[in-house]
């Protein structure tokens, strides 16, 4: 007998969490189950009517003319059943929609609140996939599995109770057979579940192998190994087939067992009813049975097993959802940093340059007051009692060995990270959205047009303002040369823009935001001297004495660019030189 894997704690927690989420769509979930229950009632009505009509026609020789009423009623029941089936699908889809939307929203807000620094502890691809694919994978659980779970318990019991009411022995027979089904399914199914998990793993492995070789196609060609690799791909798929067949041989057993029990039960009920009708059985309630009751039992018997069959079909929905829930929970259970202080008062009306319509920020100082930050697991704190005051409008370049705390400094100023002790201030208040503009090492360009990428910082910006920003960032010529100008779509890896151009686009974005503090994380890394000069010139134009600039820079040529150069080592400022 196959022994089930001990369900892991994580899996159980994921199962509980999945069930909890169903509360968010109570009406739709109730409608789904309700439509299923309505169908259950209609099945009974249908069996009654069919049995009655045949009994009337065959035994009582009622002419068709007198049966029209019953036949019309039967037709109405059939139509209602079709309606219930449709309503169930519609309500199930609705429930899945509501719940996945709520889960996705919550997950997104949690990710956003964790912030880019905390997110570094997770694989970025896995986080994006949780937000998209894993949430999608919950759908089948709510649309199909969970409602069917309720029906698979209720409907067979209703049918068996009715059959028992008509004929005790037939009811008993089904009462024994029906629980046998879940039992058998559990026995075979648990082994099959383990096998199918392994099967899924090996399917994932074969897809990964295929994708792996495709990704490395350049290398394979350089080594003239594509033919050998194609054979290996086929060989791996063939190997998977052989292994998966041995798995399927067992996995299909559970549904085969279910079908077998159902078929034999129906056969036994039919034979029992037949023998009773003939008067061969002299025990039990059989001898009193008529054709009406006999047919009723025969028609209802397969329905006892039907909900269980459907549940088995949707079992994989549950497996997929549990796996996805585990991934989602891993993110949701990553605790959020302490709640934000009350948001600073909304800034006053934005002053704009009358010529360019670009915002003109009020210069603000940036202060670090005895700031200490330690990351869990690290031996020494990333920043150790740092005291730093940057007057409004100053341009500061920061350098130091990697891991010295430069990025931590920037993240603190951006408000992505909160100090363990001490305080970070922009003007009088803590860093908040809108107060800082961020230009990362490889500025992320969003899926969408150039325009949409710029409007991220200023949703109301019209073309005049956008063009002015592009001009300041020395990008107007480049964008004008793009095939669709401002409406040119930018791809995942900023297809069509070089590294320096992407940095300048991020600068244009910063300009539009009107933020008084500009944070730059190695904006010139990997640029040729010419591009570097252009980026730095754009930053200088942008700063204009009105924006406080904090720039992390590695290459020596950039160190003397600002008004002040700080060297950070081991979480402390070891050099502070003014130009």
């Amino acid at each position, binding site marked *: 007998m196959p022994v089930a894997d001990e369900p892991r704690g994580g899996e159980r927690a994921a199962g509980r969490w999945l069930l909890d989420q169903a509360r968010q769509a109570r009406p739709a979930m109730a409608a789904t189950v309700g439509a299923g229950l309505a169908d259950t009632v209609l099945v009974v009505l249908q069996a009654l009517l069919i049995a009655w009509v*045949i009994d009337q026609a*065959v*035994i009582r020789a009622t002419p068709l003319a007198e049966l029209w009423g019953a*036949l019309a009623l039967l*037709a109405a029941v*059939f*139509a209602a*059943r*079709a309606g219930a*089936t449709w*309503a*169930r*699908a519609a309500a*199930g889809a609705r429930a899945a*929609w509501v719940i996945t*939307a709520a889960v996705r929203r919550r997950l997104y807000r949690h*990710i956003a609140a964790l912030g880019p620094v905390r*997110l570094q502890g997770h694989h970025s691809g896995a*986080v994006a996939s949780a937000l998209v694919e894993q949430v*999608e994978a919950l759908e089948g659980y709510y649309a199909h599995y969970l409602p069917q779970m309720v029906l698979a318990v209720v409907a067979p019991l209703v049918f068996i109770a009715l059959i028992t009411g008509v004929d005790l022995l037939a009811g008993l027979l089904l009462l024994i057979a029906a629980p046998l089904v879940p039992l058998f399914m559990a026995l075979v199914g648990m082994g099959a579940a383990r096998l199918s998990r392994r099967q899924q793993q090996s399917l994932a492995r074969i897809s990964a192998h*295929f*994708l792996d*070789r*495709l990704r490395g*196609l*350049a290398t394979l060609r*350089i*080594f*003239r*190994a*594509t033919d050998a690799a*194609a054979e290996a791909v086929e060989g791996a*798929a*063939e190997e998977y087939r052989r292994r998966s067949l041995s798995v*399927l*041989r067992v996995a*299909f057993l559970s549904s085969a067992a279910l*079908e077998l029990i159902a*078929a034999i039960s*129906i*056969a036994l009920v*039919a*034979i029992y009813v*037949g023998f009773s009708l003939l008067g061969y059985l002299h025990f039990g309630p059989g001898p009193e049975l008529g*054709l009406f009751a006999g*047919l009723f039992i025969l*028609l209802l018997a397969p329905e006892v097993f039907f909900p269980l069959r459907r549940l088995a079909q949707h079992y994989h929905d549950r497996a997929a959802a549990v796996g996805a829930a585990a991934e989602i929970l891993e993110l949701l259970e990553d605790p959020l940093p302490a709640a934000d202080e009350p948001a600073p008062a909304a800034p006053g009306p934005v002053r704009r340059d009358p010529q360019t319509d670009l915002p003109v920020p009020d210069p603000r100082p940036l202060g670090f007051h005895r700031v200490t930050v330690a990351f869990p697991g690290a031996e020494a704190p990333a920043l150790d009692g740092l005291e730093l005051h940057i007057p409004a409008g100053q341009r500061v370049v920061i350098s130091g060995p990697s891991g010295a705390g430069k990025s931590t400094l920037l993240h603190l100023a*951006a408000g992505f990270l909160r100090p363990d002790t001490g305080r970070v201030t922009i003007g009088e208040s803590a860093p908040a*959205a*809108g107060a800082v*503009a*961020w230009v990362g090492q490889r500025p992320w360009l*969003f*899926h969408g047009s150039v325009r949409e990428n710029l409007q991220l910082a200023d*949703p109301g910006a019209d073309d005049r303002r956008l063009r002015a920003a592009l001009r300041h960032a020395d990008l107007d010529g480049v964008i004008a040369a793009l095939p669709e100008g401002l409406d040119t779509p930018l791809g*995942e890896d900023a297809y069509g823009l*070089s590294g320096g151009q992407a940095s300048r686009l991020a600068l244009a*974005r910063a300009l539009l935001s009107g933020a008084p503090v500009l944070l730059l994380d190695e904006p010139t890394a990997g640029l*040729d*001297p010419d591009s570097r000069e252009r980026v730095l010139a754009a930053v200088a134009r942008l700063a204009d004495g009105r924006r406080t600039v904090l720039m992390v820079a590695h290459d020596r040529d950039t160190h003397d660019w600002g008004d002040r150069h700080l060297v950070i080592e081991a979480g402390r400022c070891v050099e502070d030189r003014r130009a």
Partner: protein
Amino acid sequence: MRELMPFLRDLRPECWRLALGTLLLIVSLAASIGLMGLSGWFITATAVAGLTGAYLDIYRPSAGIRFFALARSISRYFERLVHHDAVLRTLARLRGWLFRTLAPLPLARVGRLRRSDLLNRMTADVEALDNLYLRIIGPSLAAVVTLGGTIAVLVLLAGPAGLAVGAVLLAGGILLPLWAWRRGSPHGEAVDRHLPALRGAGVDAVQGLAELRACGAVGRHEQRLMAAADGLAAARARAARLTGAGEGAVGLLAHGALLAALVVGIPLYQAEAISGPLLALVALAALAGGEALTALPGAWQHLGRTRAAARRLLEHADTAADESAAVVDPPPRQALGLALAGVTFRHAAHTPPVLRDGSLTVAPGETVVIHGPSGCGKSTLLDLVAGLIRPDAGTVTLEGVPVHALAEAERFARITYLTQRTELFADSVAGNLRIVDPRADEARMWQALHTVGLDERVRSAPRGLDEWVGEGGGRLSGGEARRLALARLVLTDAPVVLLDEPFRGLDDATAAEVARRLAPWLAERTALIISHDPDSAPPHDRRLPFFELIAPGGE
């Protein structure tokens, strides 16, 4: 439907297995119908006999009922096994086909495919084709045969009543799948359209979080993400409602057949043209006949997506053409010289040229290092020499022969190239080395590992050469992965070597040691090496800054 033809042809080797699977499916469907029909007949017959006291052979019908019950389950079990076997065999072949199809694509396009998720899509498209085999062709064929046979039997037994049942089931059986297909195609397309938007918004949310937070755009991006999600969910919900409608319609069809049987059958029975048990048999067989159609609307609903998947796969097959046809005789495989003359190259029309009028000569046997800051376009230079991309102007020659005129196999028999990306395969250390030479013995592999200073590391691993390196070499450190990639080059016998930052990720001491061990191997070859730091590059005869190769200019 033309796009499905190549994939249908692909089924030919499996036609016997598929035929057997379909036959088993027919047996199981027929047994289902038989079970219900015969049971109805039996119960009615016994009821009539019980009333009239007439003799009834009960043993043959009850044996028949038991037979149908067993036949249904057993044939269903084997049908699923046989069908899955055939489909898995076909999918294995399809993967091989797709791989061979993509192999000769221009490498710039392969790079684009890799970046854009298209490869993931293609893998999914191959798997989507099992819908065609497993859910559409087999079940449709089985439904036609089973229902045809059932109707024939019913007509023989009950004449007009059988005809009435047949008319309803056949008409519905043909119309329903076609209806589901037509109505389902737009939903499938909508899902295909919305999914990339949602995926893009999801990736943006994670990768662009710093920008979103700084811009105060977290809330606005939430709206974008949820709008994309709603678009997809709405398309999914429409598809689900259609599936529900299809399911309801199949039920209605089976029930309609039962009604037809009763309405036509009852007068026949009362006219004594058929017996009472036969009336019950026709009615219940009609009801069970609907089961043959149950899965069809749902399967046909997705035919549109299956076709789209087939179309996308064929598109790649059509455009994949080997650009490098041999038009010249290759130079002999010995010490070869390299030359670039007046080479200009830009990635796109609106970007500045990476190389402008660049010239460079490397004598046979010489080792030259090109240095410059990272990201300035040095890698493009090596891509040009390897013939992976073509210059916009100027020529790249190998011992006087233009590299582009060489067939790829001939070119890479002479040139070996350590690319900027360290591309390791999810395989063992030995598996990664045997990519170069499937027959390489252990001694040669250890020798190559020694040359790159990785032998001790591999020897100390629990499984030695069989140690798994992980996806993309993820279980190795960056420096170890780099050296393993370098060891592959050492196993080739190409006379020209191109190295792009060969020591990236190595600490200085290791780099110096590897440089020392690599020296004799490099000395026998013509080598072009690029590095941001020429002092830690392998020993070389000459070095020059990259910016001397291009006429510097603005954008």
